[in-house]
């Protein structure tokens, strides 16, 4: 696998391979890069922020409660696309629990007053 290290502006081009059960990172110039590379190979995680539609118009911004498996990003976004909110929410409130079986929740990042257009 090839990727770019994001630990500093250097942006080292990393090549990550598994040999005999050991994950090897090449191209890094520091230990942080190695750790990043291993993580990206073994268990890459991402936060997702997105918009949920509100019945009658408008959107609510949400985020995942924490980073979750990158492979599930698409499923989370798909699930978010199907949501139609029909009540008010406070920032910080859980809007969708365990979204798409990812183990993380979608949390409101702003207040939504239902019935009031943005």
């Amino acid at each position: 696998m090839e990727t770019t290290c994001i630990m500093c502006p250097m942006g080292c081009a990393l090549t990550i391979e598994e040999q005999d059960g050991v994950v090897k990172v090449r191209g890094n110039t520091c230990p942080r890069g190695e750790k990043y590379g291993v993580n990206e190979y073994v268990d890459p995680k991402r936060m997702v922020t997105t918009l949920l539609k509100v019945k009658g118009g408008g959107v609510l911004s949400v985020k995942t409660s924490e980073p979750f498996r990158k492979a599930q990003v698409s499923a989370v976004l798909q699930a978010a696309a199907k949501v139609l909110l029909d009540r008010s929410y406070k920032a910080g409130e859980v809007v969708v629990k365990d979204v798409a079986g990812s183990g993380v929740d979608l949390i409101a990042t702003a207040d939504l007053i239902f019935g009031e257009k943005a």
Partner: protein
Amino acid sequence: MNVYDVIVIGGGVVGTAVLRSLAAYKAKVLLLEKSSDVACGSSRANSGIVHAGYDAESGTKKAYFNVKGAAMFPSLTAELDVPYQKVGSLVAARKEGLSALEVLRDRGVRNGVKVEILGRDAVRALEPNIADDIEYALYAPEAGVVSPYQLTIAFADHAVTNGAEVRLEEKVIALSKEGALFSVRTEKEVYAARFVVNAAGAGAAEVNALIGEEPYQETHAVGDYYILDHKEAGVVRTVVFPLPDERGKGILVAPTADGNVILGPTSRKVPHEEAERNAVTAEGLLAVREGAARLMKGVNVRSAIRVYAGTRTAVGGDFIIEESAKVPGFYMLLGICSPGLTSAPAIGEYVAEEAAKKLSLEKKEKMIPLPKAFRFRESSAEEIAAKAKEDPAFGRIVCRCEKVTEGEIVRAVHSPVPAKTVDAVKRRVRAGMGRCQGGFCQPRVMEILSRELGIPMTAVRKGDAGSEIAPYEVKDGYETL
């Protein structure tokens, strides 16, 4: 079927000028425009110059209507509340250009235009930033600058206020005459009229062809322009032209009536299908920069807030302003290129008189004036305070660059010729015409249009059909990533 005394085809400055002059008569008049607003063709993208009248050969229609039209501007623009300033013009020449200036001067004198040739110092007294090698200039104090689209809109609004009708997004697709009545078919309706005026601008030859009149050979030239930020306004005081050549009056540098600086245009011949696509080209802009630099010092193109192109349509050397010999009652206004804007008020009056004679129309005792619009940026603190108290929307600034309030935008949406698109709002109140070019206000203008017109945000357009700005909701038709 609705029978009109006169139907005007085309809502440019010429068509709307005719309509407004017709509205002075007791007559049922209608204007049909193919676009979503008036002033969508050449009347939107041109130099906005009120020419003094020394360019056209004496004895031509161009000369006649130019001189007559220019004289109408001061009172006309005051009456219609349209930005206009009589700033005067200079045709700048180098040493070797004196004899060419003398030709222009003599023609100006023959045309009845106030002109004089100024020497080096006198030129600099008027225009301190003129290029160093300019030795002489032909000065025409009666020349001016006007907002061409605001003039067109005001003509249309004034006409509608006085009983005329304007129908937008109705392109004429068939035209015939049976007996005394014309049948005018658009994509939506069929109308009948006793008299038809073809003021379709770049499409006028096509309209001619619809009724079997001569489809005159048109030539279309596209010209590129720069508009500079208000902060450059001091760089030029008058309209500064180079010596004209065979392609036209050349690349000018001038203040605009709204306080910006305009540079341009180039002149690039294009085929009919390219006309009004108005694509800006890199070569064109380079030519504008070079042309401007030959005339003036200190023109800072880095302050450009917009570049655009406009089409000018000509038919031979002179305007065609005449009734069809083949089809009586069909009045042709073709090839109204420069000085068409200047000539428009005079052409409007003339054509209305011709129609009135033909149809025995009686003049109204008086016309209802257009109310003077509140413009935030031109108002005093006291006026602003009073207006905001009366309606809070006049205290809510939507376009911060040009200081346009929500109240002004709402009024534009509900004006006699309603602004139904973001561009139509922009042309009426200047929201989005400033240095950020709508970056800040466009979503807000869209919200106001959506609310006032009762249409969804996704249906709000920039201009004509198909120009929806945000046509989808988020997650619409969401598919697998």
